[in-house]
């Protein structure tokens, strides 16, 4: 049995320890907001927070996260910062197909948590792991900067 904390809920799950967190979250817990894109930590669609840090859940064995706090897109809006990021995404009309945006928002929220007012270079570095095939990057940058400004004010 693996003990897991996801979005504040505690679970005891009978899953293999080497099963990636992504598939535990999606196929066992039914939280499908976290997406599958590549399976090799190249695209970032599967990004979740582990103790507040952005991690790629598609290559993270669930056995390695036992006892640590996992947050997914379904609950990121419960924090003031996560909610601000979601709102900025809508205000800047970032979203096109939307498939990558869960991961983008998780990465952006973690970045803003570390760097409340990130520079372009910090945005480039913090968001480098997330591919958007619709290429909404310009608006992602603008939305992150907007939240950054808000924090400063």
């Amino acid at each position, binding site marked *: 049995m693996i003990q897991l904390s996801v979005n504040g809920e505690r679970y005891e799950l009978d899953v293999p320890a080497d099963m*990636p967190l992504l598939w535990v979250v999606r*196929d066992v817990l039914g939280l*499908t907001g976290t997406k599958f894109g590549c399976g090799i930590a190249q695209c970032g669609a599967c990004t979740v927070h582990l103790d507040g840090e952005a991690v790629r859940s598609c290559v993270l064995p669930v056995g390695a996260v036992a006892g640590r706090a996992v947050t997914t897109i379904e609950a990121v809006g419960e924090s003031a910062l996560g909610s601000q990021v979601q709102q900025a995404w809508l205000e800047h009309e970032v979203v096109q*197909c939307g498939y990558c945006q869960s991961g983008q928002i998780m990465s952006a929220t973690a970045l803003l948590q570390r760097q409340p007012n990130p520079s372009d270079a910090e945005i480039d570095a913090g968001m480098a792991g997330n591919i958007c095939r619709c290429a909404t*990057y310009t608006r992602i940058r603008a939305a992150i900067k907007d939240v950054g400004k808000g924090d400063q004010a």
Partner: protein
Amino acid sequence: MSRQSRQVSRRGFLKGSGAVMGGLVLSTWLPGFIPDSVAAEATAAGRLGDQTPRGYGAYVRVGHDGKVTVISPKIEMGQGAHTGIAMMLAEELEVRLADVSVEDAPPDAELYTDSIMQFQATGGSTSTRHAWQPLREAGATARLLLIQAAAQRWSVDPAQCEAREGVVYGPGDRQAGYGELVDLASTLPLPASITLKTPDQFRLIGTPARRIDTPNKVNGKAKFTIDLQVPDMLVASSLACPVYGGTLKSVDASAARQVPGVRDVVTLDNAVAVTATNYWACQQGLKALKIEWDLGENASISSPELDAALQKASSADGVVAHSSGDVAAALEAASSRFEAVYEQAFLSHSPLEPMTCVAHVRPDGCDLWVGTQVPVFAQQTAASITGLKPEQVVVHNQLIGGAFGRRLDYDFIAQAVAIARQVSYPIKLIWSREEDMTHDMYRPHYVDRLTAALDADGKPQGWQHRIAGASVLARYVGSLPASGVDADAVEVAIDPLYALDSLQVNYIREEPKVIPVSWWRGVGPLRSTLAVECFIDELAHNAGKDPVDYRLALMDKHPRAQAVLKLAAEKADWQTPLPVGQGRGIAVSAVFGSFVATVVELEMQADKGIRIKRLVSAIDCGLVTNPTSVLAQIEGGTLFGLSASLFNEITIEQGQVQQRNFNTYRQLRIGEAPGVEVHIVPSTESPGGVGETGTALIGPALLNALAAASGERLRRLPLSRAGYFPV
């Protein structure tokens, strides 16, 4: 009132609706509407219109609560179609956009066939162009019926009533919400004529509207096909023969069946699938299979042979797709000739949601829950595989996690159905990224060979354009017309913006056979625009002329194209000189019913690094429905094309696609993505397409900028082939 009597009365009125009234033909679209309660019954029966007359309520339903549902003939894959279509309906129906929800149209070729593409599909940048007339007519018709119902209830003249925000107002204090009027309105005859608003009367169309599908895409609630869960469903994943055309010889599944969670191992002619309680178990099961393939005859073929065959073909004559004037004579008499050969690579679509399909096959029916650009083809495919009748196959269309043309094909749907018919439960087929990339239907590798006849000033008198490559059209519909010309492949090339005394376009079909080809965002116009716009740029440099001036002098017959070219150049400060090592490139085209020009400004860095300093686009796409979507599509479409132009090429080694994931088929990332400045030309012309226009322009603008900045005239994409990389 019984449904039967409604049906009879309605039919009578439909008969008369085919006449041309006030310049509008109603017969094609029959844009009636029905209350939600009736619609729910009809939908449960499989599709709208089974019991009610054909087309009754094809586009709009109004609930007793006043809520409006638009049945969208176009699916949502990020391009904003749902929002635009809801806006068109809301404008004429006089409701708030917030009160409109969207439902995807069921497969029904009669009702939802695209007026441009001639089949029911979302693609070809047609959504706005197609929906523009019927959706506004549907809204106007429904509004008139609701006003008529109110007038009848109040015994007043309809001319004394008007509709605003879902309410009909009459003389005195009379008012009634649409919901109260629905039952009466749905018994009334269709109006004898309808008059649509003129652009100056629009209150919604043309204003920047928030996308209606996005709030649930920032909180994890939006469901894509990959997210669906239907009762008793298991996940399935598959491995197809790594060589296209190969087959399954044998499989030892004993170890796979021992993997915890695995339920079944299903064999197909060319693939093996594992079903399990979750995707991870499916993958573990697939890894445990011992498979023997018959790789077939394509297993000996690699990219160099394919390249050589295509190069050779590009000098052949093929068939003449267009001929005006006498090119041979012009080349003979020319003061000089100029020849250039452009080459574009095989490309994968690689949407971030890999191919997915939920399928449930039963003896008496089949349900498909799948995001598809072609619901009728999905239905027909499932019917032909299962032996069911098409009407026994219900297609529940879904939001799509990117398609870029990939979901115009239905090979993955066919595979899901073929697996599902062998098991007793619904399956959710999910391809791994590796399976998705190596079993795509690829944008063809093309070679364009152009030869111009120039006068003493370097002005073209005419040119010959040879286009060699696989025919997507032939693969998609089964054959080419008797002419042997692929109309998609030669589009733009046969009708360049530039005045030429003679023009000959030859089409040489050269099939790679080893991989299937398909539509890729930008389709034929993407390829032709690259060739024509690089060529005209080279001719300008050859003549020692400014590329903008040189083009403008040849574009007298295309004022809208001239206007976007001038606007893009002006906004990009085209006339301002740049230091050595920097340069600007421009391209202009008439594509998908719109006129677009793009300028790239770039700076050379050490070791073939390139830094794109500015990216400026101007578009005239006629009347704009939602400017927010136009801007987003040009931005995203341009960067989507930039990604492929910089990095992407699918190569074949012994019949197998070599690129398997985003580590070897890399994509543009945020630090490499320049901002895109977009300028929309105000226009009251008919709406043009937008989604693919940016993609079509970036390649030539980039190559022309590289030539201006570095002096190196590259003629083959991607740039990474020549060692260039973004910094």
